[in-house]
């Protein structure tokens, strides 16, 4: 009985690693990632699309099921997309480590002798063996002058000597550096999962107030590390056209009653304080906080009987009537969409402002009734026939600004990844390694140039060298 070593587990592991780091898998993953990303770009993503569910339903039941079951409504946060990206990273690690090992070995090791034949080399006929010996040192000199910094002479028993010139050997590392950079970027993205971010909405009434550090976010890990005060904010416009030029805010940052910093931020000009980037995100009119002044009209007498002021969402009693009035929505420019629903067209020149009202009262039987009415700056025909009508006299809409804050521990890693990728790309494309081999045979020189990607330039260089070698043959006097 003999003890036999079972190589299966090791072989299987090697085979698995070989498959996981293979180019075939890399190509398949690149295609899969591209297709997945394209699907995520075409299918409206639920997180950023209002009424996404309704949109999916409009495609039909088959597509609705497909989209929801395969998480195509949130491709970039789906488990299968993470799995694909993870597999891609693993493939990159294995492939790069294997490649880099080979590249480093070729960088620091001695080149191997290669038998050159007339079929794959340029042949330069020489008159005698003596001449060949004479040119050997000059060949090395010319090869060095052509930019091949490392020149190695290989001697092998039974074979003629071979001269190997190597140029930009480190250029072979370009692809590995790019791979490394992509891995660093992926690491940065992974670290980004630990980011803290949130949005603070400040309207005009909150200027100069110390704001809660957590903004609109409920999770405490998304809170700012300091207190923030928005001293002022506004909008800059182009003088001639009145178009918006910039949104800005002046802020002051406080910590334990000490002023840390004051700054002016605007779109594209954020500020970073204690690792938190503060950005001006949005500026607009806060229609939900609009203050409206309404005139109560008695249509029978065509008289203004009273005036009330109320904020959107707040209920106010109508003087002289058993009615409660609640402005539901203010429209800067009122219009009806195709389905008959009221919409706000924004600050359209010549637009008609309006307020949608909810009126609650009691009818003759004592039962409570609620109806909706629209108050415009003039009396419409419908309003004129009603028992009581409302006229929109004035409205003031407070402006608001959204400040976004982010602290992402992945940023530095991410930026370094970019730098590494660009350095790698520059090396891979513009510093390609090349080599030249020259074998000295009795009566002739065999010359072969090699460059990555079958570069013709390297071949051209070989031809030039061949000419130079012929030109530099020692004259009779030198001999």
């Amino acid at each position, binding site marked *: 009985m003999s003890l036999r070593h079972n190589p299966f587990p090791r072989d299987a592991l090697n085979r698995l690693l070989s498959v996981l780091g293979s*180019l075939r898998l*890399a*190509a398949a993953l*690149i*295609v899969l*990632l*591209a297709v997945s*990303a*394209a699907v*995520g*770009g*075409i299918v409206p*993503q639920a997180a950023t699309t209002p009424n996404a569910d309704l949109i999916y339903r409009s495609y039909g039941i088959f597509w609705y099921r497909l989209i929801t079951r395969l998480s195509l409504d949130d491709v*970039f946060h789906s488990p299968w997309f993470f799995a694909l990206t993870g597999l891609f990273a693993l493939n990159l690690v294995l492939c790069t480590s294997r490649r880099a090992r080979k590249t480093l070995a070729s960088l620091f090791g001695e080149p191997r002798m290669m038998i050159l034949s007339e079929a794959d080399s340029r042949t330069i006929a020489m008159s005698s063996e003596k001449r060949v010996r004479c040119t050997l040192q000059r060949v090395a000199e010319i090869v060095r002058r052509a930019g091949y910094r490392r020149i190695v002479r290989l001697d092998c028993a039974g074979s003629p000597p071979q001269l190997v010139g190597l140029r930009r050997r480190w250029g072979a590392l370009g*692809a590995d550096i790019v791979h490394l950079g992509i891995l660093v970027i992926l690491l940065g*993205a992974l670290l980004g999962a630990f980011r803290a*971010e949130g949005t603070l909405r400040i309207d005009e009434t909150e200027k100069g107030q110390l704001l809660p550090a957590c903004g609109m976010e409920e999770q405490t890990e998304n809170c700012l590390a300091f207190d923030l005060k928005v001293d002022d904010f506004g909008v800059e416009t*182009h003088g001639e*056209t009145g*178009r*918006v*030029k*910039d*949104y800005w805010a002046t802020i002051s940052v406080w910590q334990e009653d000490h002023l840390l910093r004051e700054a002016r931020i*605007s*779109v*594209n*000009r*954020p500020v970073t304080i204690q690792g938190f*980037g503060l*950005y001006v*995100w949005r500026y607009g009119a806060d229609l939900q906080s609009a203050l409206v002044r309404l005139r109560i009209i008695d249509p029978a007498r065509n008289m203004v009987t009273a005036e009330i002021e109320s904020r959107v969402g707040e209920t106010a009693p109508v003087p002289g009537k058993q009615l409660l009035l609640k402005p539901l929505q203010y429209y800067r420019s009122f219009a009806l969409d195709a389905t008959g629903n009221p919409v706000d067209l924004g600050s359209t020149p010549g637009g008609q402002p309006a307020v949608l009202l909810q009126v609650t009262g009691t009818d003759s039987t004592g039962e409570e009734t609620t109806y909706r009415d629209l108050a415009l700056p003039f009396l419409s025909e419908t309003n004129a026939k009603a028992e009581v009508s409302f006229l929109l006299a004035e409205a003031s809409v407070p402006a608001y600004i959204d400040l*976004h*804050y*982010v602290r*992402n521990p992945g*940023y530095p890693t*991410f930026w370094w990844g*970019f730098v590494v*990728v*660009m350095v790698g*790309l*520059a090396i891979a*494309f513009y510093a390609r390694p090349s080599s030249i081999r020259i074998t000295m045979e009795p009566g002739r020189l065999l010359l072969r140039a090699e460059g*990555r*990607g079958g570069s*013709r330039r390297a071949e051209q260089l070989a031809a030039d060298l061949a000419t130079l070698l012929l030109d530099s043959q020692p004259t009779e006097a030198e001999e």
Partner: protein
Amino acid sequence: MSKGVFFFDISAIGYIAAFLWLLVARILDRGWVRRLGTGLFVVSFLAQSAGLCLRGVALGGFPVTNTYESLVFYGWVFAFGFLALLGAGVLRGRMRDGVGITVGLLVAGTMALAGSPLRSAEIVPLVPALRSHWLALHVSLVFVGEGFFTVAFASGVLYLLAARSKRKGEQDSELLERLDGLIYRCIAIGFPFFTLGGLFFGAIWAKHAWGRYWGWDPKETFMLVTWLVYVLFFHVRLQRGWQGKRTAWIAVIGYLLALFTFAGVNFLIRGLHSYV
């Protein structure tokens, strides 16, 4: 105010004439006809450059602030890519005719689309999100990359057409080999520009404007998809030794995706990059 439009109109007419002239040159195979076509192309390019400069001065910045300007600049980089390769002596003989005709058609098409009544040529002040020096770096480098991709696409189309005629018996292996080399060379030149301008400078700008470097916005997503297709091109070509029809197809698909990222996403899918 619509500065530069006169020059753009001149160049559009010039490009159409150059395209037709190069087509005639291809049929007649006469040197002087070919030279005249190339000359027309160069004059149109100069007129377009002058228009862009004028517009840039009027705008006080890089003229890529709306679809009209972007289309004009897009056409300019196509022409630049072609002329750069012509000047470097990469394009010769039949290859020069073929690439010139295809690029001429593309530039003329882009200029015609820009000049259509659908796109306003008015100079409109920049919206706050575009008021950044990253605009020039981001857009110009992407377009320079895509200019070379355009030549790669033109070479890819020519390769596929030539390979088809070869199948029918007409032998032109040298042309095929040169076109194949040109596809690789153009993508190798354009890819670093595309990566740096599109992905990296775009990410830096996104971080400045929106507080995140990547947000899976449709434009960003399709730029990544295009980038991945070109990554695939390099892998299969350099590592697996793919050449010829297969890589020509990848060059064509990659470019169509780049076009979709530029125009299709703007018009069909709404996102943060939808500026008209």
